[in-house]
């Protein structure tokens, strides 16, 4: 439904491009999130799709229409694109009522009044604001204004909805609540959505696919599960969730020599050239006794500290090589600082990481 091909964007007067050759294909009904740190170009990319920024080269298609093409000079203006957008600042118009705001896109499209009224009522009901219809927009709380913005975007039934960090201005509790509501809403309506955020948890919870972005490029694109459990880049492993990273010295077959010792990796990863190996802290198993038979990737170490944090204990273990790693253990086990523990890095949870891969 939305396709970006090799999009580049340099702002006038800037020395560096903000968006460097990103390509992405969003299928109809899919919810794709652009995730990355501030300044990575995710908002610029989103705004390019909206037509609020003019890319330097590349192409963008929405539905069957090409809305931008750097070489042929096609550039469809924002108001002619089949999109709707929810802004970070909500951008609810203070001089109109709630229903006035929501009705605006339909009025602009010159739909008959009866239909406008009906669709506005529908949209307001979907976001739970039906009793607020005649309230002035300035009399709403932040969360309510956000819902107005969402309703206004929904009412248009466009090919794709663009959302620019819509929840980042809400307080934590509200944010959590709205996250789920939003996903539910969009799935119910069956909209295609491109969502921008820097909040990983949000991205993991809401998206069908995540496009991880850094310094203007897509680093990796994949489903939340794939990206979390099996990232292929160093950035992916460290930005999305936490990870312990070990530098690879040499590989031979399934044995990888790292700076903490030799680790066995999974058969399908064997032979691939990667520079680092990583693992999520929660995937590391820790026991107080060595196991009787030889378990691959079990390393001895000294417990430095164990901190109780409610659901689990957070351990720091210093391995024989000198390196300390974080491990999560269950809450009930008794540990004592200084004791010998054995950590196991299960081969199937080891992630082979490279600096860069082609994102698809």
């Amino acid at each position, binding site marked *: 439904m939305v396709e970006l091909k090799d999009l580049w964007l340099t702002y*006038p*007067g800037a020395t560096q491009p903000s968006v460097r050759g990103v390509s992405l294909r969003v299928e109809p009904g899919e919810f794709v999130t652009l995730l990355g740190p501030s300044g990575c170009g995710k908002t610029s990319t989103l705004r390019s799709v*909206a*037509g*609020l920024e*003019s890319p*330097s*080269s590349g192409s963008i298609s929405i539905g069957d229409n090409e809305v931008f093409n*750097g070489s042929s*000079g096609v*550039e469809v*203006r*924002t*108001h*002619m694109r089949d*999109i*709707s*957008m929810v*802004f*970070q*600042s*909500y*951008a*609810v*118009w*203070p*001089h109109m009522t709630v229903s006035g705001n929501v009705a*605006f*896109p339909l009025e*602009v*499209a010159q739909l008959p009044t009866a239909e406008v009224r009906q669709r506005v009522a529908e949209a307001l009901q979907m976001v739970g604001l039906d009793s607020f219809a005649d309230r*002035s*927009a*300035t*009399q*709403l709380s*932040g969360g309510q*204004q956000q819902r107005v*913005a969402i309703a*206004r*975007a929904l009412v*248009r039934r466009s090919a794709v909805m*663009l959302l620019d960090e819509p929840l980042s201005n809400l307080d934590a509790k509200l944010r959590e609540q709205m996250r789920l509501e939003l996903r539910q809403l969009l799935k119910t309506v069956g909209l295609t959505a491109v969502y921008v955020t820097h909040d990983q948890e949000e991205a993991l919870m809401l998206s069908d696919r995540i496009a991880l972005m850094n310094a203007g490029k897509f680093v990796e694109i994949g489903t939340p599960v794939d990206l979390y459990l099996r990232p292929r880049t160093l950035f992916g492993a460290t930005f999305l969730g936490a990870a312990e990273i070990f530098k690879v010295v040499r590989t031979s077959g399934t044995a990888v020599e790292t700076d903490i010792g030799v680790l066995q990796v999974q058969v399908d990863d064997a032979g691939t050239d990667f520079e680092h190996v990583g693992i999520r802290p929660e995937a590391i198993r820790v026991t107080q006794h060595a196991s009787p038979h030889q378990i691959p990737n079990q390393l001895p170490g000294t417990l430095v500290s164990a901190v109780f944090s409610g659901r689990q204990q957070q351990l720091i273990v210093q391995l024989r090589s000198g390196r300390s790693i974080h491990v999560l253990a269950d809450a009930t086990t008794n540990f004592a600082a200084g004791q010998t523990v054995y950590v196991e890095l299960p081969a199937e949870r080891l992630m082979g990481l490279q600096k860069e891969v082609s994102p698809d």
Partner: protein
Amino acid sequence: MRQGALRSAPWLSFGLLALLLYLVAVPLALLLVSSFKPTGLPLDAGWSLQNFDLVYGDAGFYTLLRNTLTFALGCTVCALAVGGVLAWLVERTDLPFRATARVMIALPMVLPPFLLAMGWVLLASPRTGWFNQLFKDALGLTQAPFNIYSMGGMIFVETLALVPSVYLILSNAFRNMDPALEEAAMTCGARWPQMVRRIFVPLLAPALVAAATYLLIVGFLVFDVPGTLGMPVGLFVVSSRIVYLATDQSGGTSAYGQIAAIAVTFLVLLLALAWSYRRMTRQTNRFVTVTGKGFRPRQLKLGGFKPFAVAAVMLYFVLAVLAPLGLLLWTSLTPYLAAISWEMAGKLTLAQHSSVLSNPRVGAAAWTSIWVSMLSATLVTALALLVAWTVLRARSLGQEARNLIDTLSFMPLAIPGTMIGMALIYVYLTLSFIPVYGTAWILVIAYVTVYLSFTSRTASASLIQLHPELDEAARTCGASPATTVRRIVLPLLLPALAGAWVWVVAHVMRELSTALLLQGDENVTLAVQLWSYWAGGEPSKAAAVGVWLVIVMTVITIVWQRLSARKDVVFGG
């Protein structure tokens, strides 16, 4: 790579550029040509630098510049201070009778400055001034305490005349300030002086600079007050020289070439100011205070200060409105110009008023003034909005094109009214198929050109405070730029635009130099009629016309106040 900035420029922006080139670049070009012509008339033969030599080679000119600089800076600082305080009191505190205050502060706009100056002569002239009499009698002084014929007097009166303009710009800015920004500072422990210095001033910087630039240029070029209060004691400013070159220069014609040569300096100055304004506001999101989030500006409780604040506003009102108007009324009732005294009070008569009101020419002039002012105001406000929008929001034009539009819209400020008039005469004499010469329509064109500077600054200062996402949201809802302006930008900017509209109406109704120059036999305005009485030796009739002018403007201003008050409600105020 981008193929070119104008690849997808819509016709509206191009049309705007073309219109501005026509309105502004043509008089500008004629001005520049005139400065290089020995006779100053663009169609005469020969080129020469003698005008520049005559102007800048004359040592006396630099004395003029020094006086002018003192005067202009003095007015700018004072008007900013007074206007700023008044704007703050009305918009950000719980001052009582705010609606009345707004009208009172705007009223002085309508008085032709030379009547204002004349009124103050009758009040504070050392020999015949009424205030001087009062103070001498009350305090037993031998010397008159006030002398209006001084640099201080000039600055004082001109400040009174300029405050309404400053108030307009700053009150819009104040009204649109998000309290969250100030509250954040307060929770960081900032106290009042720090707040002002580090929060208010920077946030208000675009409005302040817009106001200051306007004041400076006006201060440099204004004539009436320095002419009435400075000339008698030999205090001359640049505008005195310009008027001299236009009307009193010997040699048989006006020395337009020298006027143009002088104007060139101010054009350069103006360009420099415009450039620094643009640099400062380049990061426009720094000044955004109106987002979609809706707020009520914090209102400071004056508490114990309330009576002082009210007194301050009243004092301003007395000095700027009541006193001069009172004198105006007095002058309109005396058979000849005379100081206030019991003796004269016995000779008061309504003869001037009845003569003026029964003069059909006055009626015709009033009608001309009313429709010319309203039409000009409407056209120029619409144009100003378009300019502000294009400069600040239209991405489809390249940055250079937008800078050009911005600069063009600002330039007329530095072109003396006489030069614009002169240019328009040439243009419409030549383009005789546009039957505008000698009619009131040429006045409309002149005024749209002249007042574009102020209104585009006002529109721009207001638009800067509007979060761009408010109109981006409209565009993502399918609204074309035109619809966005009509349904989103215009309603939100309406208070500021309405203020600008009234300002233009007031200024057109009192504008003199251009109207005099373009005078035909069928486009006499009320201001010209007023001046005609004055210059023809009938100051009482001039004062009578002035009184009626003020009455008409008061009505218009009150109507404006009512309309813009309703808009406040929308903002939850």
